[in-house]
């Protein structure tokens, strides 16, 4: 009887799970005193893009988002508790989508920027949607949403470029290849 090959190999699962754990570690250890909405995107998107860029399979980002969402909920990283899962899932799924759009060439700085910015913006939109769902009046959400969007875009994009540069170095040094993980 033929054994069905799993979608993600053990190596990929381990790598994606480590990336997910890294998100939680970065969120816990780094505390930048910037006071600007979305500034955490500068390091938050990096492990997701690296994970998606290495594994190069649809669902890799969503998997990272799922695992990091569960970890963030367990560690109580912010006030949304179980709803963290949805925020992290949105971030991962968006980077998955962008990776698919760019044929997983996330080592390119432009593609990295777009992936990071789109992921960080997806996180923001879901966060605001959840807060509206939880009873925060819409007028509170829309005050300053323009500035918040721009800062999420910029910080997510910078994080994406950092991830692209890391991926590029990994490719050049031969740690990973373009064709297979």
């Amino acid at each position, binding site marked *: 009887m033929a054994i069905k090959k799993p979608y993600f190999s053990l190596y990929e699962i381990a790598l994606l799970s480590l990336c997910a754990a890294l998100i939680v570690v970065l969120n816990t250890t780094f505390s930048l005193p910037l006071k600007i909405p979305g500034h955490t995107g500068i390091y938050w998107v990096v492990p997701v893009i690296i994970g998606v860029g290495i594994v190069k399979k649809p669902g890799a980002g969503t998997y990272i988002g799922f695992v990091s969402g569960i970890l963030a909920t367990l560690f109580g990283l912010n006030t949304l508790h179980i709803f963290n899962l949805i925020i992290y899932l949105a971030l991962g799924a968006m980077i998955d989508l962008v990776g698919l759009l760019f044929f997983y060439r996330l080592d390119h700085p432009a593609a990295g920027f777009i992936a990071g910015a789109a992921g960080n913006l997806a996180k923001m939109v879901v966060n605001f949607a959840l807060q509206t769902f939880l009873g925060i009046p819409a007028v509170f959400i829309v005050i300053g949403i323009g500035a918040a969007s*721009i800062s999420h875009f910029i910080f997510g994009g910078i994080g994406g470029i950092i991830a692209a540069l890391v991926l590029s170095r990994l490719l050049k040094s031969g740690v990973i290849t373009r064709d297979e993980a």
Partner: protein
Amino acid sequence: MEFRTRVGLAFVLLGCFLGGMVALGTFGEVLFPQSTTIPTPGILIDQVVTKAGFQYGPQSWRPSYDPLGIYPGKDVLDNETWYLMFIDLNATPVSGDPNVKRIGSVRLMYNFTDLSGRAVFHVYGLTTGTIPTRTNRQVGYNNCGFIVMGNATGGSSMPAATPLVISGSHQYRIAISNNLLADSDDLTSTTRILWFNSPQSGQGALHITPSLSKRMGAVTETTDQNGSFYVTATGNDPGNDLLLLVAVDRPQPDGFALRVRTEFVRMS
């Protein structure tokens, strides 16, 4: 489709999205008008204070990381002499966790008796941990405050007032005047801590507004000796209690009294 074309297309899409968000932020208050507000039953405080409540002054500034001016919209003017009183309002515009609990505003009703000259209201949001104390913005975009003009004859002195000393650590232990009842000379006030961690810190979260249609606050000047205004919160944690600063620009007559009442107004 080529890689470069996809990059261009993605930037166009993100640009459109950002444009939409900026437009939403600009016209948001029109698109999502203020819903009805419901006062929560029960007055949070009902205090009457006399001129003995002015425990600080004469001075030209109010506490922040760097001293702030007192008249809304003005920097510190060295030639001005203000007398300051702090009242714990036992209220906050947010009830509990801002992400999951009700958000509203604090309505403050005031009644002056024998007010001489100008009285200015400011608020401070008392926080915990490493979060700096909040206050309404003094100058610049979205600065706000509330001024009441009185025409009573001024007094000769403010015997209870001594100037605050500018703190190098940017922390102030402030005596509150809540316990100073109208017919009492009891000066056993408790204190509150104000702490600021950087210039301009804590000036974007709390606002003073005459109307809830202007949630980001406004500067209001009135001669109405009996009136009200709202303390609203946007953005970061506004703190778990509010401290009201009342500043007057001259010694008050012996008959001076200020009645302050607060109530929480929630949004439906």
